């Protein structure tokens, strides 16, 4: 139960230090701007005539994917910035001394941190995505095929990068851990593209690079799962005609994320959290 005390502290800190407020306001501004952008799509004319409804929806779906990529990127950055100094910061400042001398185990402390951060990630990702989808629906009447699956994938992506940053936080300073987590996040994204290029040219070695990065830090795999949930069937069909080369496009997914990958991600988070606990067991504040 003491883990929940720590979790509440994490959430309270985010609220008190106006982090949530800043994120919320910025997100609302972005949603307003993109909402305005979406509202302009039906006004586009082709040779004097408005675009057919199907085309409006197709453009909207593409625009939505790019917009959501930006949200997922902001989410990953925010998750890293909050998680990376979460433990190391308390150890360096001395705040951890008073807490850890209490009848609380290291596992409870790390788990509490994770739970608090997970709640923040879920609320931000879920909230921002839900509002954006609602605005798009209100403005152009477009709802992607699987909005809930999309939100689940984005939350999972946030959880993965947050858990990784928290592991680094048990040993490295916030700045070092944050930089490493973000570089790996970027590498994962590029790895996904590289893997796609490998598939396009039927190069097994390069394809393996893509698969390996997807397994080391499964954020890009989750992003592809999120993209697939946003793609209308017509788009998937068009992509399929383009052949395997389409896989290199980071805003496109040819197929849904397999169940085995989803299970892998659950296991990945559990293992990395366990490693964080193990690592912090021997850390001496």
């Amino acid at each position: 139960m003491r883990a929940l005390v720590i979790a509440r502290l994490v959430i309270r800190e985010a609220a008190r230090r106006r982090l949530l407020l800043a994120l919320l306001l910025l997100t609302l501004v972005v949603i307003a701007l993109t909402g305005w952008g979406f509202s302009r799509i039906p006004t586009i004319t082709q040779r004097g005539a408005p675009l057919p409804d199907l085309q409006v929806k197709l453009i909207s779906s593409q625009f939505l994917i790019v917009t959501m990529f930006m949200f997922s990127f902001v989410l990953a950055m925010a998750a890293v910035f909050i998680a990376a100094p979460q433990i190391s910061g308390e150890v360096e400042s001395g705040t951890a001394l008073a807490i850890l001398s209490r009848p609380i185990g290291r596992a409870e402390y790390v788990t509490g941190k994770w739970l608090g951060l997970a709640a923040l990630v879920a609320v931000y990702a879920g909230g921002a995505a839900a509002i954006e989808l609602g605005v798009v629906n209100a403005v152009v009447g477009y709802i992607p095929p699987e909005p809930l699956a999309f939100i689940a994938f984005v939350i999972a992506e946030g959880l993965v990068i947050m858990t990784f940053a928290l592991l680094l936080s048990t040993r490295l300073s916030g700045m070092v851990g944050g930089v490493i987590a973000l570089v790996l996040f970027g590498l994962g994204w590029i790895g996904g593209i590289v893997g796609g290029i490998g598939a396009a040219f039927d190069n097994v070695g390069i394809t393996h690079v893509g698969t390996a990065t997807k397994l080391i830090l499964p954020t890009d795999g989750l992003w592809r799962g999120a993209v697939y949930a946003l793609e209308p069937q017509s788009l998937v069909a068009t992509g399929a005609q383009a052949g395997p080369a389409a896989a290199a496009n980071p805003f496109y997914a040819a197929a849904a994320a397999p169940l085995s990958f989803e299970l892998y991600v659950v296991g990945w988070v559990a293992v990395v959290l366990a490693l964080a606990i193990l690592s912090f067991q021997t850390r001496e504040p």
Partner: protein
Amino acid sequence: MSDVPPVAIRTDELAKRYGKITALAGLTMSIPAGDVFGFLGPNGAGKTTAVKLLLGLARPSSGEGWVLGAPLSDRTAHRRARRGVGYLPELFRYQHWLSAREVLRVHCELIGLDRAAWDAEIKDALDVVGLADRADDRVGGYSKGMQQRLGLGVALLGRPALVLLDEPTSALDPVGRHDVREIIRVLKARGTTVFLNSHLLTEVEQVCDRVAIVDKGRVIQVGTLGELLVTDAVRVRATGLENGALDGLRTFGELSHEGEWLVVRGIPAMRVPELVRAIVERGGQVYAVEPRHESLEDRFLSLLEKPHA
């Protein structure tokens, strides 16, 4: 506190090494429950390391220790025992985005105090450390001294059987220091064991029952203040004594100089006239003879100067 074991802290060759650096080299001591115990030593002597080991914040390299009966090696038992331990770290930092009352509430919850008792506990702690009128201000706006007072309040929550204070007055003004001494006296009256880590000798001298002097990670002397401070010493203001003459006086006790005074430690009072006679016989002229009350500082410095294993 009826179930408090008679010995609050015991250590047996407790040691901590960081690579080649020995932070604590085999600490052996026993602190009876209810004692106010002063842990004295210069900076870098291993005092904070000892406290961190006792609290489970660091793992010993070798040896064993028991806190309120729970061995350090049994993490579960030790964690349970920490319900009865209050701690003011040398590096006192609390969540600056919370108010003092909220910090105390978090600690009430971490200790596992009955929720119904929180308000009374918090009020008590705030009153004792003198923060009652600033209780709802953010800690971020506190001075260092106020933050240390808050830390003391945190350490007192839940009436712990054992309180470890690591340099508790480092950020306090003279009034604050006086307040801390009073708090320690109140704790003693309650039967609380206090482990006071300090390099401030007057502080230790005024409140502690027993003292351990540590240097380079080892206890070099431990005992009550009475045992530690030699009272059978005299100082003699004399002139005309040659260095060779002093050798003959060594049979009376340990000799040292304090300006123009000659200090003789370990001399029984009945031998003082004999000492004066011996000085005169060796050509010395005696102007004054007085008993010398050794302060803890004298003892501390003389112990640190001596080579010890």
